[in-house]
């Protein structure tokens, strides 16, 4: 895989002597992981069925995920179990933000950037199709995939809105406040395992995204209940899109960063980057690199609204 010089220098700063391990991880295909859709089937039953076709491996300490080995390209998506919504093809790291959110049955949840619905369907399953989720996506093309995945997975507690995230929150906050909010923002995707994200990378794009991310996360806080939880996540490794956004929220709003546990390897977030110094509590957020779990890279923060 080819990287731009500037990008690689930044990654070297972040990873130090782990850089070669990270690079060689990106040369390998990502293992196929699926999330069991517990709305429709138990892990035991699904595993039994899939073992008739493929080699299936469990993940220690994480019940909902399975690794599928020895499958042909396209086989998983075209399987009867997928069409019937028994599972969702999802990377292991992308299953983590809903775990940090910990949605409960009776809660009102906002998923501000929901398409294509991997995390929304996971949240619905964690809520046993109870409570309510408002899942928003501004783009028409992506709404189609979101709705199709919600239907396939048997999600019945969700309302899908098609609006710009900022505009939606400004309308909604006049009347509705949420217990939990997931802000899985649009990002540079440098945590992905595909070359396209690295080809597109440039510092101006990162700066532009960082400003959009700050806007989305801060407006989302305005419709969160007092004591409510907001989880901010990206599949980016760029500090400007991650720690800098959380630092901005901590310094400008009445929120506190909370610790949380994940069933996969993660690291503490950084508190310094180039000339920037972040609030010390930013360390409580989590960074996940691609080579940590042979999955995608991710950044996750859990914030509690104080007032």
């Amino acid at each position, binding site marked *: 895989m080819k990287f731009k010089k500037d990008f690689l220098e930044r990654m070297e700063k972040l990873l130090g002597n782990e850089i070669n391990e990270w690079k060689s991880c990106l040369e390998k295909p990502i293992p196929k992981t699926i999330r069991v859709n517990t*709305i*429709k089937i138990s892990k035991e039953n699904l595993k039994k069925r899939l073992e008739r076709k493929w080699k299936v491996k469990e993940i220690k300490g994480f019940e909902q995920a399975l690794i599928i080995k020895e499958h042909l390209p396209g086989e998983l998506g*075209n399987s*009867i179990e997928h*069409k*019937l*919504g028994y599972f969702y093809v999802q990377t292991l790291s992308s299953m983590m933000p809903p775990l940090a959110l910990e949605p409960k049955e*009776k809660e*009102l949840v906002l998923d501000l950037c929901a398409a294509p619905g991997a995390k929304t369907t996971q949240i619905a399953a964690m809520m046993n*199709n*109870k*409570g*309510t*989720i*408002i899942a928003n996506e501004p783009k028409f093309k992506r*709404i189609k995939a979101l*709705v*199709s995945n*919600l*239907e*396939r997975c*048997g*999600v*019945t*507690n*969700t*309302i*899908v*809105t*098609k*609006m710009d995230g900022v505009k*939606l929150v400004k*309308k*909604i906050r*006049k*009347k*509705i406040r949420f217990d939990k909010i997931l802000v899985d923002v649009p990002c540079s995707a440098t945590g992905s395992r595909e070359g396209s994200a690295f080809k597109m990378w440039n510092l101006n794009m990162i700066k532009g995204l960082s400003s959009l991310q700050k806007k989305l996360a801060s407006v989302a806080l305005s419709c969160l209940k007092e004591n409510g939880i907001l989880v901010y996540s990206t599949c980016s490794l760029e500090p400007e899109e991650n720690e800098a956004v959380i630092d901005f929220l901590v310094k400008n709003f009445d929120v506190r960063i909370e610790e949380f546990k994940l069933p996969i390897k993660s690291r503490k977030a950084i508190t310094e980057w180039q000339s920037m110094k972040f609030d010390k509590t930013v360390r409580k957020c989590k960074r996940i690199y691609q080579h940590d779990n042979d999955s995608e890279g991710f950044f996750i923060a859990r914030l509690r609204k104080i007032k």
Partner: protein
Amino acid sequence: MKRKIKQAEKIKIVEESLKEYGIKLQGIFIFSGKEKVRFFTGSLTKEDLNFLLSNCKVEVIGIGLGKIQEKSLRLSFDAANLFGKEAKKVININEEEAKKWLQGFDIERKEQKGFFIIKHKEDILGCGKSTGNKILNGVPKEKRMVKTK
């Protein structure tokens, strides 16, 4: 010319059809267009729901339950799959029939006329319309299995 069905009549048709299928649902039915029915289990109050509908661009609510056709409810593929496990208005099909059904073919079967949930072993494979001599395929294109050689 087709007569427009009133909302109260639609609710009655849905409730009676679900009773016939043997499906018990607790939630809100939402009607759109002439025949589409959706089903929502969310806990949002009616007041908040109305606020959302009048202030935001709501794309869909809940799951597509099906369509009102011939004064009956034809369940959608996904709704049948979700709610049909305990249903009684069911036609069980064998392995060979299931393969054809999922490829989009009708099934030659003498059954009572009407809509039925189609089941193969533990899998619910949507809803089909029986004409008396055959069951007309109800598997949407995106759910069909690609025929392998």
